[in-house]
């Protein structure tokens, strides 16, 4: 499985990561290994099997539309590095 340098840079951009030249080399190799590993499964013969779209064949796991308020509201923001007036305070985003 070949992974191009551009693909690694693209993925890094999507993840907001700045990679050094060394890291690009390393991750290209790592990514190829990961894909090769995952590709093992393609060797299985599936000729007589139906296509499946999930590993979990259960369906329609649904809940009723009934309000249940979460009680411990203060805990929700407890780990926020910074908060003001009940909101998460983050660097300016526009």
């Amino acid at each position, binding site marked *: 499985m070949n992974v191009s340098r551009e693909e690694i840079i693209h993925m890094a951009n999507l993840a907001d990561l700045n990679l050094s030249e060394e890291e690009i080399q390393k991750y290209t190799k790592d990514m190829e290994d990961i894909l090769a590993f995952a590709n093992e499964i393609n060797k299985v013969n599936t000729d007589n099997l139906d296509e499946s779209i999930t590993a979990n064949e259960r369906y329609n796991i649904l809940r009723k539309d009934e309000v249940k308020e*979460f009680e411990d509201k203060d805990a929700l923001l407890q780990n926020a590095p910074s908060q003001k007036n009940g909101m998460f305070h983050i660097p300016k985003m526009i």
Partner: protein
Amino acid sequence: MAKEDYEVVMGLEIHAELSTKTKIFCSCPTDFGGEPNTHCCPVCMAMPGTLPVLNEKVVEYAVKAGIAMNCDIAENSKNDRKNYFYPDLPKSYQISQFDMPLCKNGYIEIETKDGKKKIGITRIHFEEDAGKLNHDEYGGGSFVDLNRAGVPLIEIVSEPDIRGAEEADIYLKKVKSILEYIEVSDCKMQEGSLRADVNVSVRKKGDNKLGTRTEMKNMNSFRAIQNAVAYEVKRQIDILESGGKVEQETLRWDELQGETISMRDKEDAQDYRYFPEPDLALIHISKEYVEEIKRNMPELPESRKNRYISYYNLPEYDANILTSTKYFSNLFEGALEVCNNPKAVSNWIMSDIIGILNEKEINADKIPFTAKDLGELICLIDKGTISTSIAKKVLLEMFDTSEKPNKIIEKNGWVQISDEGAIIEVVNKILAANPQSISDYKAGKDRALGFLIGQAMKETKGKANPGMLNKMFLEELNKQ
């Protein structure tokens, strides 16, 4: 080439918040407003280890919308993750639907100035809304409120069948009206519960190939869409006319500046890396389920319109306006239960009520009295208790005070004068004061009669029975 040589091609992606009581994947309330982060729990705040569970009403409402818009309802459907980073999206992915949407291949019919037209619906899928960022309210930085995160949405994607801003406007209003009728969304644009991404391209008339399109995100008023499309169409034609090429990009409409602004450069072309959502089970929709929903569907505007034309003999124009929102339609039908005079009820809604709504700049859902009140008001005219001109005053008071028509009439002493003795007294008084009008009438000027009736109405503050005034003036004039 001139502007007229180009054709505008548009497609709309409409996001509508569903009016469920709870969020899509947790039991938090969906109410609008509320102190920041008070309608939240570990699930919609994306705390590690939490798992989503789908709200059954979301499936039901999305299927309802699909049926109302003539879609095929998928037997099998699933959720997918749409990955992107933004601080209003706590999981860093949105649970949406990618390749197996719940509804596909539908259409709705709109009335354009050239007649009926079908607009194709590519798909309808459901997904979760994001939170809200507030800026600079308390000094530097941004502030994240996740009350809206996880509120269910449906996204209705149209085919590129829309030709111009006017059709887009009609289409959006029609979709809004359908969603209101089937009661799956409040469609409050000012609260952001209905918003549209608008795709626009232009091509030379006769070309079959679509031009390069640009997309304007999160438009939440009819006026903004009109202005933005007009601007964008001109911008694209200007580019093509000067030999340039339209770039495919996402734009933001700046209402204040009246221009579109590029949001992202194309280097950053969107790559959402969709993949099946492993935390949710598949959705299987049985034929019986679809049939059950079909059986319980409220009557749609199209069907109501046809009924108004054929059963109540209303003109098509009137029927169109009455069914343009469920609020008018319900008002009409509710008033008819009290007062069986369809033409009169229709006229009162079409002219007086719509006029007052426009003047006061309020929406039809905010009419402060009941359909029964309107019916009673019209009955009072039919029975001769009040005149039409008094009824107009009563209606204004109903808007201001929400009081019952009877009470308003009683309070103001507005009961119509139909007593013959009282009316003849007024008639003689007016005749005595206007000898010129009498000779004008004798000289064949019919307008003089109208003037005299008007004076009598003024004298009685609009309370005299106009039919009786007319009759008695004629009698008295012919005696003279």
